[in-house]
C-alpha cells in the first residue's frame, strides 16, 4: 500500500480566523481518501474545523545546501527587526 500510494501533507485550521497549520502526513489513494484519513488521524479530538491536504510531491522545499545563501545573510541585519529601534519618549505602544 505505502509503496504505491501517494503521500499527502495535512494542514489543519484549529479555529475560524486562524491559519492552517501543518500537522503531519499520511498515505492515501487520492485526495478524497486523504481528507477522510486526515479527519480520522488528526482531528478526532476536536483539533480542527477545516483540513487541507496537499500531495507531498507538490511541495517545493528549500534545500539544506541553500542555507548559506538563503538564511545566513539575515543574521547580521538586526535593523530589520522592530526591536532594533529605541522608541522615542512618549510612544507607549507600537
Amino acid at each position, binding site marked *: *500500500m505505502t509503496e504505491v500510494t501517494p503521500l499527502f501533507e495535512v494542514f489543519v485550521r484549529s479555529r475560524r480566523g486562524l491559519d492552517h497549520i501543518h500537522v503531519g502526513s499520511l*498515505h492515501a*489513494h487520492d485526495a478524497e*481518501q486523504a481528507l*477522510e*484519513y486526515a479527519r*480520522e488521524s488528526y482531528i478526532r479530538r476536536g483539533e480542527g474545523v477545516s483540513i487541507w491536504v496537499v500531495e507531498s510531491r507538490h511541495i517545493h522545499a528549500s534545500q539544506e545546501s541553500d542555507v548559506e545563501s538563503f538564511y545566513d545573510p539575515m543574521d547580521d541585519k538586526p535593523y530589520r527587526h522592530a526591536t532594533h529601534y529605541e522608541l522615542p519618549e512618549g510612544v507607549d505602544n507600537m
Partner: protein
Amino acid sequence: MTNHGDIAEYALRLGDDALVHGQRLCEWCADAPFLEEDIAIANAGLDYLGRARMLLQYAGSILGRSEDELAFLRDAPEFRNLLIVELPRGDFAFATVCQYLLDEYELLFFEALTNSKDETLAAIAAKAIKEVRYHQRRSVEWMRRLGLGTEESNRRAQAALDELWGYVAEFFDADELETRVIADGVGVDRSALEVVWRDRVGDLLDEVELSLPGDEWQVSGGRSGVHTEHLGHMLGEMQFMQRAYPGLEW
C-alpha cells in the same frame, strides 16, 4: 402510550446491532490493510460502541440492568442484533461490502428515527445520523475502489456481495413488537425503507460494475434470538473479562 417494556426491547435491539457490529469492526484494529485504514476502521468501531452504550443505557434504565450487564452477561440467544453484523469479519472486501449495505440501511433508518415520539430515541438518532453519513461516504468510496479497482478486488467484492445478500432481507422485517412501536410513532417502519434502499444500492452496484445478486435465499432470526453459530464465539472473546472477573470495572 407505548408499553415501557416494548421501548426497552426496541432500544435493546438497536443497541445490540451497534454493539456487535462495533465489536466486529474493532477486530480490525492492528489488522487492517495499512495504518491509515486501521485507524479509520477502528474509529468507526468506536462510533458504534458509543451508540451501543447510549441505547443499552436507555434499555437498561427501563429494565433495571446496567449497560455492562446487558453487554457482557447475556448469552447469544438473548442478543437481538441483525444476523448480518455478527458474521465473521472475513477479508477486507467482505467487511467493506457489509459496511456499505449496512450504511445505506442505517442512513434511512436513523433519518426516520429522528422523528420518533420517544425523545430519547430521537435524540440518539440525531447523534447517530451524523456518524452514519460519514460512514456511508467512506464505504461508497471503498465500493468504488474495490468494484472498479483490479480484477481481484472486483471478484472479492462480488463474492462478498453474493455471500451477504441473503442477510439483507432482515433489514426490512418487522415482528409484532415492532408493529406495535411503529403504530405508536416510536419505531420506524422498516418495510417502507426497502424500495429506496434497493434503488440506491442497485444504482451504486451498477456504477461500480458489481452485479446485483438474486434473492434465492434469505435468512432471519436475529431479532428473536436465533443466531448464526458465529455470535457465541464472538461473545466468548468480548465477554471474557466480565465472565472471568464478575463486576470488574476500569
